C-alpha cells in the first residue's frame, strides 16, 4: 500500500542522521543546512520548536485551504439535506412556516460545517504528512528513539542532489552535531 509508506530514497543508503544537544543548536544547524542548499532533509524534535520552519526554509502549511473546502462541503451538505428533506422527501407544515424555512436550519448547517472542517484538518494533516507510515528507516537507529524524548536531530536523505556521504557528514559535524551516523534503507524496501 503506497499510502502506508513514506516516499524514500532509492538504493542502500537512506541518508545521514545527526544529533544536536539543544533546540538552539539545532536551530542554527538547520540554518546551516538550509544555506548549504539541501532540499531533501528534515529535522526531528520531541516538540515543535517555534521558528524552526523558518530556519529550515519551509513554506507555511496549505492545510487551511483543505479545511476551508471540507468545512464548506459539510455546511452545504447540511443545508442541502435539511432543505431536501423539508421540501421534497417529507414536507410538513410546522407552525405555519414555509417548507424551506432556512433560518431554522442554520444550527445543523453550522454543526456539519464544523464536522467537515475537523475531519478535513485531521485527515488532511495525515495526508500531507504521509501518515500512517508505521515503518521508516530512521527507526532502525537506536539513538533516534530519543527524538520523541529529548533528542534533536537532522536527517539528510541520500537522494538530495547535494548529498555526498563524506561532505554531508562533515557539514553536520561542523554545524555542531554531537553524533553523526549513516542510516541504511530498509533492505525489504530497497528491493522493490
Amino acid at each position: 500500500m503506497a499510502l502506508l509508506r513514506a516516499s524514500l530514497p532509492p538504493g542502500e543508503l537512506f541518508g545521514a542522521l545527526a544529533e544536536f544537544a539543544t533546540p538552539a543548536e539545532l536551530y542554527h544547524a538547520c540554518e546551516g543546512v538550509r544555506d548549504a542548499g539541501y532540499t531533501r532533509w528534515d529535522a526531528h524534535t520531541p516538540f515543535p520548536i517555534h521558528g524552526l520552519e523558518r530556519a529550515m526554509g519551509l513554506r507555511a502549511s496549505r492545510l487551511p485551504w483543505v479545511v476551508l473546502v471540507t468545512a464548506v462541503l459539510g455546511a452545504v451538505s447540511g443545508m442541502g439535506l435539511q432543505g431536501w428533506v423539508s421540501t421534497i422527501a417529507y414536507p410538513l407544515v410546522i407552525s405555519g412556516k414555509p417548507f424551506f424555512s432556512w433560518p431554522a436550519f442554520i444550527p445543523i448547517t453550522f454543526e456539519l460545517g464544523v464536522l467537515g472542517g475537523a475531519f478535513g484538518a485531521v485527515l488532511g494533516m495525515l495526508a500531507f504528512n504521509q501518515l500512517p507510515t508505521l515503518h521508516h528507516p530512521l527507526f532502525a537507529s537506536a539513538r533516534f528513539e530519543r527524538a520523541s524524548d529529548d533528542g534533536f536531530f537532522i536527517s539528510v536523505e541520500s537522494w538530495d542532489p547535494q548529498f555526498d556521504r563524506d561532505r554531508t557528514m562533515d557539514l553536520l559535524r561542523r554545524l555542531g552535531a554531537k553524533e553523526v551516523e549513516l542510516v541504511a534503507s530498509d533492505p525489504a524496501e530497497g528491493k522493490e
Partner: protein
Amino acid sequence: MSGTQSESNPIAGRPGQTVEPSTGLALSESDPVDHRAPLILGAQTFHAITEAVARPMERPATRGWWICFLISLSMLGLLGVSIAWLFWEGIGVWGLNNPVGWAFDITNFVFWVGIGHAGTLISAILFLFRQKWRTSINRSAEAMTLFAVACALIFPGIHIGRPWVAYWMFPVPNQMGMWPQFRSPLMWDVFAVSIYGTVSLLFWYVGLIPDVATMRDRSAGLRQKTFGVLALGWRGSMRHWKHYETAYLVLAGLATPLVLSVHSIVSMDFATAQLPGWHTTIFPPYFVAGAIFSGFAMVMTLMVIMRKAFGLEQIITMKHLDYMAKIMLLTGSMVGYAYALEFFIAWFSGSAYELFTFKNRAFGTYAWAYWTMVSCNVILPQLFWLKKVRSSLAALFVLSIFVNIGMWFERFVIIVTSLHRDFLPSSWFYFVPTFFDVSTLIGSFGLFFTLFCLFVRFLPIVATAEVKTVLPQAIAHSQEAPAIEHDASGAVGLAREGAA
C-alpha cells in the same frame, strides 16, 4: 498534604526568587519571552518531563488505583443493571406518569454535557488566547470532556421509551419513509452533542499522537506495537510538525464556536418551549457560563487527586490550580448574575405566570433545592477571592465538590421547578426520584470514573510534547532569548549572553 507549603511558594514569590526545595537548585529565572514566573517547577529537563509522565503508566498499578477502579466498575455495573431493567420494564421505573417525571434524566444529561465544556475551553479557547498554563492540564481535561459526553449521550438514548428505534433521531431512511423534523432544537441537539463528541475525540487524538510516539519509543513487545499503531509512525519530523501545528490551530478554531454552540443549543431545548421559567433569551449565555463553571469544578476535583496520586506536583502546580479557581470565581459570578437577572426579568415582564414561577422557585416546595444551588454556586465560590483559599488544596477540593453538587442542582431547579407547576393543574406533581432514577445517576458516575481510571493507567495523562514547549530552554530562535547551557549536573541554566 505536606507539599502544600513549598508548592505555594512560587505563587507568593516574585519571578527569580523561587528555589526548588529538595535540590536547592536555583530555578530557571523568569520566562525569557514574557518575563513571568515559570509554569513548570523544579530544574526540569525535557527528559525529566517524559519520565514524570511515563512513570505512572510503566509501574504496576497501585493499590489506590485498583480501589478506585473497582469502585467505579461496580458503579458501572449498577448502570448496566439499571438500564437493563429500564429496557425490560419501560420508563415507568422512573415514575414517568406526568411531565415532571422525566426531570431527573434530562438533569443528568445537561449536567454531563456541561461538565465536558471546561475540557474544550482549556484545550481550544485557552490555546487561541495563548494561555501556556493550559499545557499541563489540557490532556486530562479533554479526556474528561470525552467521558462526560459519553455519559451525557446515554440519557437521551435510554429515555425515549422504545430504545430500539433510537435511530429515528438520525436522518436515515426508515421503514415508514419518515424523516426528522429539523426545525426542532431537540434535533439540533442530536447533531450538536454527537458532533461535539466526535470533534473532541479528533482533537484529543491529534494531541495524543506525539505522546504515544514517546511511549512507543520507551516500551517493548505488545505495548510497543499498540502504541506504535496509535502513533501512526510519528517521527517528530519538523515537516510533519508544521502541518500538525496548523491542524491543531484549526481544530482549536473550530472547537471554540462549536463548544459555545453546543450548550446554547442545549439551552434552546428549554428556551423555545413556552413554559414559564424556561422561555427566556438569557439561557444560551447563562448555560454556557454554567457549563464552563461546572466543568472547571470537575477538572479541579480530578486534578487535585491526580497530581497527588501520580506525583505530578511540579507539572500541575499550585499556580495552575490558582488560575482554575479564578476562572471558577468568574464563571460562578456570571451564573449568579444570571440567577438575579432571571428574577428581574420575571418582574419586569409583567407576566403573572413568570413571576409565580420564580417566587415558587425560591420560596415554594422546592426552595431547599434552589437555596442549595445558590449557596453552592454563588455564595461559596466567593471564597476564591481569598488567596489563602486558592492556595489550599483541601479548600479547593471541597469547594470544587460543592460546585459540582450546585451545578447539578441548577439543572434540577430549572427543569423541576418549572415543570412541577405547569399551565395544566392536572400535571402538578411533587417530583421525587425513584430508586432507578438515582441508580442511573450513580451508574453514570461509574462510567465516567471507570473510563477516567483506564485513561490515567494506559495513556499519557499530561501532554508531554506541549509541556516541553513551555520550558525556557525550548525557545531556540529568538534573538532576545538567552543561550541555553547545560552544566555538568545536567540541570539547565540560562546564560545571559544573548543568542550566538
